[in-house]
């Protein structure tokens, strides 16, 4: 979309209308105010000196009996002229200082950049006062000083923008084609930085208005007999204490005009962004969960779990049980809902996700009502760098678990942290506890996360893609560690992975998820005999092994998984399934037990016979 329609669109919002109306009023006042009220504002009335605000004089009169309200209206023009003049100087100065480094040689450019950085470091008002001294006290020198005072920050912005555009491919291409520096600036750089600079200018104008008023208020800006809003305030300062209304006129004029400049900036910004802020979607309240019908036997019992985000269901009626000490793996592509299922079990689904389940039990706790107890559930996440707090030492992050949940003292907690770090294979744990996460390697960080889970006595470890962010060799070490930890602690493991090979190495049972649903569940031992769901088969087929024929292309699953919010009729895998029938496309298959320990949701599961048939071929 080009700019004009976007701007028109932005102007139609309440914000845009307000900005347009307010700026029109201000500009009309600036144009007609002095014509209409100029005489009233200058009329000296010795009978009405220093009158309070009232019906005759809205904001009272000044020391010479002049009507303050009229003077505020008349002062609009000078105030606006000076603001715009100073803004012009700021923009021109900023553009020159900002673009020059790109035009001049490297050395001169760096000198200018350094100077600008130096000037930006000074508080603006001090720089303005300095310039006001050099230029002498007076109206136009003040405008000059304020304009130049705002130039460095404009220059900084222009420099940053210019640098980013100068690095783009099309500028590089122009340079290779031998286009001159000056031409590059005029043709390529200036048009591309125009919009952000325009936005910056409107905010700068508001700042300049305030700065100018401040300077005039100090008596260093506009000099009598001229007056702007700041000067009017200056003249009223002695009386303000007696009659606050006398300051309300010029004061509110400054504030309202400043806000209007800001609004113009926002409208320009919105037009730039090309769209109004997205409306927050209202999440439908999840249906209240029916009470659990059967008392389940496992450690973690998930019954008909749903996780919804605005407008779509990410996890769809998932039923899953993890027994004491058992290792269960959930496999699926990204977006299959496997991580959300795990996060829901831990009560950590991010906002605005809504979790509902017929039953969600961990041990003897109803997770619909309570969080899991203390340290009984340990979590290991995908990205160990992001999952550890960068500001705290590793020791602190481990020790606090013991401090909070086991009432351990600081020293005892730290001792346990050291021993746990040692247990997960961190060398020199007593030294490493004092380090922060960035001083560890990726694999070591994941060991720290596991050690964190071992600070208590976990009954379940939920590991969400624990090896995805790691190197292949480190992956194997971390998997081996998880296995060891499980053997030693006797904890159950819920391992989430997109890699069926990883899961089959560590787990007893595999759950395959697709489009937020469980499509198959089977013991790891049965994997070799062949899976029943075509999607599981495709997942296994996509894993290359040592015996894979290198001449055939790597197996991939054709098509793509359904997008969030996409309406699904029938089996969600049907569009990608070679075996799909009409029934698959219209009716959704239910997860049914086909053998003890094996469940599959498919109208036409692959049977052992089919496998033998295929192998025979």
């Amino acid at each position, binding site marked *: 979309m080009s700019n004009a329609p976007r701007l028109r669109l932005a102007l139609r919002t309440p914000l845009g209308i307000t900005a347009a109306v307010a700026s029109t009023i201000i500009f009309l006042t600036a144009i007609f105010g002095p014509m209409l009220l100029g005489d009233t504002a200058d009329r000296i009335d010795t009978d009405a000196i220093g009158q309070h605000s009232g019906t005759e004089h809205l904001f009272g009169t000044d020391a010479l009996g002049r009507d303050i309200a009229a003077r505020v209206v008349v002062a609009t023009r000078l105030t606006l002229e000076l603001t715009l003049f100073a803004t012009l100087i700021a923009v021109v100065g900023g553009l020159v200082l900002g673009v020059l480094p790109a035009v001049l040689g490297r050395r001169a450019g760096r000198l200018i950049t350094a100077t600008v950085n130096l000037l930006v470091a000074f508080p603006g008002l001090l720089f303005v006062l*300095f310039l006001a001294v050099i230029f002498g*006290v007076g109206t136009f020198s003040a405008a000059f000083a304020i304009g130049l005072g705002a130039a460095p920050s404009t220059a900084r912005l222009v420099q940053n923008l210019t640098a980013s555009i100068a690095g783009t491919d099309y500028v590089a291409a122009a340079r290779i084609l031998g286009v001159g520096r000056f031409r590059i600036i005029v043709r390529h750089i200036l048009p591309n930085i125009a919009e952000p600079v325009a936005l910056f200018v409107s905010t700068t104008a508001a700042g300049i208005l305030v700065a100018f008023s401040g300077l005039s208020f100090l008596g260093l800006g506009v000099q009598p007999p001229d007056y702007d809003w700041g000067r009017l305030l200056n003249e009223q300062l002695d009386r303000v204490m007696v009659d*606050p209304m006398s300051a309300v006129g010029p004061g509110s004029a400054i504030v309202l005009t400043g806000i209007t400049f800001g609004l113009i900036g926002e409208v320009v910004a919105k037009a730039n962004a090309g769209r109004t802020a997205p409306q927050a979607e209202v999440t439908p309240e999840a249906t209240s969960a029916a009470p659990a019908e059967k008392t389940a036997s496992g450690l973690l019992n998930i019954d008909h779990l749903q996780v919804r985000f605005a407008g779509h269901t990410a996890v769809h009626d998932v039923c899953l049980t993890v027994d004491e000490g058992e290792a269960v793996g959930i496999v699926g592509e990204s977006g299959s809902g496997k991580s959300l299922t795990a996060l829901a079990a831990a009560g950590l689904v*991010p906002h605005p996700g809504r979790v509902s389940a017929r039953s969600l039990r961990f041990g003897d706790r109803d997770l619909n009502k309570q969080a899991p107890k203390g340290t009984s559930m340990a979590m290991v996440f995908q990205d160990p760098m992001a999952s550890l707090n960068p500001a705290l030492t590793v020791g602190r992050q481990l020790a606090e678990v013991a401090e909070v949940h086991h009432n351990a003292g600081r020293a005892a907690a730290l001792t346990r942290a050291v021993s746990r770090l040692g247990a997960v294979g961190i060398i020199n744990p007593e030294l490493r506890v004092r380090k922060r996460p960035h001083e560890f390697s990726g694999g070591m960080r994941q060991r720290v996360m596991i050690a964190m889970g071992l600070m208590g006595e976990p009954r379940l470890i939920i590991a969400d893609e624990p090896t995805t962010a790691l190197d292949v060799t480190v992956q194997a070490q971390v998997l081996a560690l998880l296995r060891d930890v499980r053997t030693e602690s006797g904890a159950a493991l819920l391992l989430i992975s997109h890699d069926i090979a990883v899961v089959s190495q560590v787990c007893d049972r595999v759950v395959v998820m697709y489009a937020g649903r469980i499509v198959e569940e089977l013991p790891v031992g049965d994997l070799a005999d062949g899976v029943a769901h075509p999607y599981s088969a495709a997942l296994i087929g996509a894993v290359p092994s040592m015996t894979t024929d290198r001449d055939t292309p790597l197996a991939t699953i054709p098509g793509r998984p359904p997008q969030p919010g996409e309406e699904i009729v029938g089996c969600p895998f049907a569009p990608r399934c070679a075996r799909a029938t009409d029934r698959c496309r219209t009716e959704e298959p239910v997860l049914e037990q086909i053998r003890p320990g094996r469940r599959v949701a498919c109208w036409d599961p692959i049977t052992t016979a089919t496998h033998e048939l295929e192998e025979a071929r």
Partner: protein
Amino acid sequence: MSTATPAGRVLDFRLGPWTSFFVRRTGRLLVSLAALVTAAFAMIHFVPGDPVRGALGLNATPEAVAARKEQLGLDDSLISQYKHFVSGLFHGDLGESITARVPVSRMIGDRLPATLEIAIYAFLLVMLVAIPLGMAMAVWTRNGRRRRGELAFASSTGAIVAIPEFLLAVGLASVFGVSLGWFPVALREGPDSYVLPVLALAITPIAALSRIVRVEALRVFETDYMRTARAKRLPGRLVYLRHALPNLLTSSLTLGGLLLSGLLAGTVLIENVFAWPGLGMTIVQAILQKDYPLVQGIVLVYGAAALTINFVVDLAVAAADPQSTIRGS
């Protein structure tokens, strides 16, 4: 920035990142101070017309002007004047005020504490109020809760930020000073007299900083390490204070530093509203009276203070978050 330069890399290699960072920042501070001193020196020579004539008035006799010029050393060559000026600085000699006829250093010594006091109190007030307020608002409105509270906070702080500090000061003076008569509105006499100037200095930065802290806090709440903290079932107090707060402080400190040097500038306006006998009031009078040596001295003090604050903030941020700051800069 400088790490990218070959010199920066060599420094990193020889001294280790921390020392190298410190050396580079100190170097930048010294260069900036030198530039400031030169600019302050040059200021007097940029002034249109004859500064001594301007200060003494049109009625001064040519002899008096000449004598004064000689006394100020304005007839010497520029280079020897500059040398004189710089060596004077090292001895704490900033020249003599043209109007008051007392050493500038003594005037600054008299007035500086008043300015420092309100600036520091205001800064402490800002940090003590804005960070907890922003945090509390973030916790309160997290995950899209209490949209009305969020709107009220955003619009009220937005309105405060839009009001210029000196107007706020005038408003405070007329409401709490005149109408209610709770606090004195002028001069520095007794603890009561600090209330309004400090408030006037602090309110705008409090509004600005608490908005930023809230947004930063909401960003931090979304991070993976906050999810880890929740996964550890820590009490909310620990999750927010121990895990979120330190990660907020880096950005808050950076902004706090900018605010502090902004506060210094703010004193100029605020002091003039409350007739506060500090540097801000003195510099405005000095500019109006064309007392250039005094202006020069105060500009030096304000400028050096701003540069020092930036330097200290850089170091503090680096200490709080060594990884990103030192490597990134």
